[in-house]
């Protein structure tokens, strides 16, 4: 007897919305990637809660896959940010205007 399922989903939803705001509002690519991480964390919370609700271990297996995908995503994303920083000297996406003629 822990808590109703909706409370755990509410926690995951609020965390996901915070990640969404972080993703959209910041003008620093590192903060954008952090927002994606927060959203994946919220998804993992929802999966574990659903796994407990239906007493199936598939939810937990999916969280493991989320972890691995998130690790690959963040490392590749940070490498792209470093590569962009080497080319343009900025991590602000508004300043990427190499294609402008």
């Amino acid at each position, binding site marked *: *007897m*822990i*808590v*109703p*399922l*909706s*409370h755990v*989903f509410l*926690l995951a*939803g*609020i*965390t996901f*919305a*915070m*990640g*969404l*705001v*972080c993703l*959209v*509002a*910041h003008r*620093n690519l*590192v*903060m954008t*990637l*952090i927002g994606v*991480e*927060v959203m994946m*964390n919220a998804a*993992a*919370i929802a999966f*574990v*809660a659903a*796994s*407990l*609700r239906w*007493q199936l*271990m598939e939810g*937990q*297996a999916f*969280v*493991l*896959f989320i*972890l*691995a*995908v*998130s*690790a*690959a995503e*963040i*490392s*590749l994303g*940070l490498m792209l*940010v*470093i*590569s962009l*920083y080497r080319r343009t*000297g*900025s991590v*602000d996406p508004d300043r990427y205007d190499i294609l402008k003629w």
Partner: protein
Amino acid sequence: MTLYAVIFYVLGVVILTATGFAVTRRQPVHAVLYLIVAFLGTGALFLLLGAPLLAAFVVIVYAGAIMVLVLFVIMILQQSPRESGLLSEWGPATLLGIVFLAVAVAMLFKDPGSGIVLKGAVARPRDFGRFLFDRYWLAVEILSVLLLVALVAIIQLGKRREADGEDDTVRNLNGASHPTAGQRSIISNEVKEGHQ
């Protein structure tokens, strides 16, 4: 209200507060430090929800490895924050988040099955591992291939091209000293801007 419920609400407050502080910081370093607290809270929440192996993985992979990686990258970038908390940037984003949250909450409480109280159960690490490699071994292998592909892509992106004209300029500017990677890229950018 049982003890488990109290622990859940305390953990929820910790996670929400830490995440809220993390997403509003201008300095990425502060955001990462707050996010480590949020991930530790998430690990404890997984333990409460009956997933001890995942709790350990979250602490090791998220709070340990990924956040340290982000910290290293922030230190490589040496980027001072230039953001301003303008309403024109935060207003639409917050509005979007609130609309999303309202829809999600409406859907959540409309669902008749949402009031079901969770029963405590624990997936022991041995059972979980056996289950995973019994039924989803192919997915685990695909994940390892995905990580390998990411590794190859990162190495390819991280390689710097040696036959570049700009590198010679940098070398001449610096004389005999060998600048580190971050310094070199900054110097080459300054050189580029100087030419323009």
